[in-house]
């Protein structure tokens, strides 16, 4: 049994930041990097399934009924800094870590990223592929589902509860719908699930365990290793392209005070100002 978990290193910003020279992204100097919050939950879900399987295996009395060896593989697409989130994943209980990167991947949209993830999934052939519902920095909420499309696997989005016994062909899950409704779904494996926050309580990875995880290897793959060409990647392989990034103008609000006549005067002045007429 194998579960592949797609993890992303996301960035956060504080109030002061600057845009990159080309205006299409924030200057990386201002990034505070971390593991995507949703991926923390999907990773935990995978590790929990693995641990439950391991406990079941030790409890099993018949030695011949060897439980399927459970494996969790964390996969990230990103530059070298992304090793941090993979190490965190290893510290939390992932068995292997794979990072895919090449300069050509820069500028990929979720479709292009999903193509790469699908290629990794074909290589790994997991029973389940978990992704977060979305990433906290770009919020496309489409990478996981697009990956399912490339693989032509069944998929379920916004999974809030999952019952899956390793080695079985189907998983039963509950999806979160609008208005607090739940969808209970029975899905055929292999499948792609995008995991919602709150499905579990992610464990804490102590710095000591992260340090120990640093000793474990992170497998580095290039697109070529996955049979992808430059036309599959970056802007060439994307369905969309970022044109510009900007901070929206701040709106303003003002309380008009005074008696009715004074209020009307002020309002008229504001309308004239808004139309650009001289007051």
């Amino acid at each position, binding site marked *: 049994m194998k579960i592949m978990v797609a993890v992303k290193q996301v960035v956060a*910003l*504080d109030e*002061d930041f600057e845009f990159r020279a080309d205006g299409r992204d924030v200057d990386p100097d*201002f990034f*505070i*990097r*971390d593991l995507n919050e949703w991926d923390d939950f999907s990773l935990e879900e995978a590790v929990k399934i693995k641990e439950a399987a391991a406990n079941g295996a030790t409890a099993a009395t018949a030695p011949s009924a060897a439980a399927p060896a459970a494996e969790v593989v964390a996969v990230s697409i990103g530059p070298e800094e992304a090793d941090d989130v993979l190490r965190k994943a290893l510290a939390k209980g992932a068995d292997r870590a794979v990072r895919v990167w090449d300069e050509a991947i820069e500028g990929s949209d979720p479709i292009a990223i999903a193509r790469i993830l699908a290629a990794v999934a074909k290589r790994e052939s997991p029973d389940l592929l978990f992704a977060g519902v979305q990433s906290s920095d770009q919020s496309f909420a489409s990478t996981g589902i697009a990956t399912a499309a490339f693989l032509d696997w069944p998929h379920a989005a916004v999974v809030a509860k999952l019952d899956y016994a390793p080695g079985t062909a189907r998983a039963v899950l509950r999806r979160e719908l609008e208005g607090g409704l739940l969808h209970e779904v029975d899905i055929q494996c292999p499948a792609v699930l995008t995991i919602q926050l709150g499905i579990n*309580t992610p*464990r*804490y990875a*102590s*710095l*000591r*365990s*992260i*340090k120990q995880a640093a000793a474990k290897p992170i497998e580095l793959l290039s697109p070529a290793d996955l049979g992808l060409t430059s036309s599959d990647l970056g802007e060439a392989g994307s369905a969309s392209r970022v044109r510009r990034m900007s901070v929206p103008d701040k709106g303003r609000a003002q309380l008009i005070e005074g008696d009715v006549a004074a209020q009307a005067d002020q309002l008229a002045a504001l309308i004239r100002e808004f139309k650009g007429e001289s007051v």
Partner: protein
Amino acid sequence: MNSNDAVTRILFEQFSAAQVRLFYALGYAAIAIFFYGVYVQVRKYRRGAALALEGGVWSRFGDMVSTVLRHRTLDRRDHAAGGAHRLIFYGFVLLFIGTSTITLQYDILQPLFGITFWHGDFYLGFSLVLDVAGVMLIAGLVYMMVRRGWLKPPKLDYARPDRDPGDPDFDRPQYRREDWAFLWILIVIGGTGYLLEAARLVWLEARPDVWDTRWWSPVGALIAEALRGLGLSAHGGGTLRMGLWWLHGLLALAFIALIPFTKVKHVFTSMGSLMARDPLAAQRLPRIPESQATPGVTKITDFNWKQLLSLDACTKCGRCHEACPARAVGAPLSPRDVILSLREFAKSTLEYGPVPEAAELDVHGKSVGQVTQETLWSCRTCMACVEICPVAVEHVPIIVQMRRKLVEEGAMDPLLTKTLQTIHKTGNSFGESKRKRAAWTKALPFPVKDARKEPVDVLWFVGDYASFDPRNQKVTQTFATLLHEAGVDFGILFEGESNAGNDVRRVGEEGLYEVLATANIAALGTAKFNTLVTTDPHSYNTIRNEYPDFGGKYPIVHYTSFVKQLFAEGKLKVTTPLSYRTTFHDPCHLGRYNKGYEAPRDVLKLLGCELVEMGRNRANSFCCGAGGGRIWIPDPVGTEKPAQNRIQEAAAIAGLDVYVVSCPKDLTMFEDALKTTGNEGKFVVKELIELIREAIPARRTEAVTA
């Protein structure tokens, strides 16, 4: 001068050879049981982890002897008990020496070399001394009985805050029974000693060597007179003497045999614990040895031998129980009960038979002898327990080492988990980006030097709270302005500074602490400076006491000492003396941890303030509740917080104007507590820095335009 050989201690007179043999057999048996008990106890300690003590054995021995003889630690905060213990201790020691010298002559020197000294003046002098010693012993014991039976100080109540009534180990009645048995056996041994002495005098009243020198044993002589008055004959005295002799002797032998198995063993274990004392036990926490597979303490055998020994040194005196701020506000923690639980655990698992399987050695949990997570997370690592313990039990490292295991498992409050992740990500507990660390300098009308880029005389380690908390930033800006006006050449590390890690380490996240300490040491390594000054007592402690273990040795002072020096050098001058009635709260990490009691008080007096001490001050200062990472864990709703308890103490001072603090976390904690206790408007909480500013108003040209 009396050099009459006949004036001597009557030992086995009128005993048959068989009786003497019986007594010796019993004596050897008692000693054998004693040594077997010692073996069992020593083996128990040796089943703990290894530890090499720093420093020489003899200096440790000398310190221990001095502490024991002066009863220095026993007198503190309980003079009556300390005094009574002193009577018992010296009485017991003298009686022990007296009995030993009899053995020395009778069993060793006389048979081997024919040397005798127990006669004449020496005997008479000694019998007087021992009679007085007996009175001391009994007087001390009587007071202790009165204390336990009638005074009943709350600290001697064994009811536990971390267990519920009905739990098998809720109030441990076996301890009470043992306490009373201990007092009674000693008092009966003492009492029968006097009666025996009196009976012997009556029995030998016809013998002038005995009778004429009787007043050298004044208590015995008095009782003898009384017994004679009641009609006791010499023959009756002889019979009584024989009976009492055996009773007294058997009780004494039983007492010796029981020492290693009962609370009596504290006479040895407390000396051992005092000898192994680490003067920086809480200030400098132990590193995790490279060889250790799992961090912290999981099994009882993960504690080192010294810790296991100190568990047995505890005398349940309750001083730590009384001092603990968590216990005071009803949290499920008493340092005493942590120690006693672990002691019971060690006793049940490590005293007899082979060491059990690892699973049976787990000290974490809710069973008898185990310590719960709630208990461990209640600790503020304020060091009040370690500081007051008369027998050098070091609770804080024990609790933190147990927490390390919980952190490794993630068994902690979700908000604490979040904070640790935030600190790892951003280097501060506020989750702000590193580059915002020095944002507070932007409001200043003068530039603050970047110590990484140019040499400075004074490098100021600002710390998290002072850098990011908006209320504290004002204080930080004021301090910078004061330094500027005093002409101090100072700088800061800007984004090179990270959380110092003091509290992260006390939470038990050792790996993160190492990351932070290493990062700060690297940043400090890029700066050229003469002195390190900090406004944060927590940073002060870890940089002063713990960074040296990571290769960072710096001359560091807390700002209170630094400012005092600026006043002494005339660089700061009070122009507008203040006339506030103030009280000062000693921050744990400045006061108890590093004995910085006087500098802030001296500065307050320099400013012209009246200082009224709270009952709990200096070494007995009451923690604000923020230490040990507790500032990141919410206190349970509906319970009193330590800071509120403290503010109420200050509110009892009539006419108080200002509650003075000198720690950023204190400012946050106590301003909050002032509001939540409804004391707002009665007095204010201020940083000492703010009072200094008031006493030295900025000249108009240099006024800060914030």
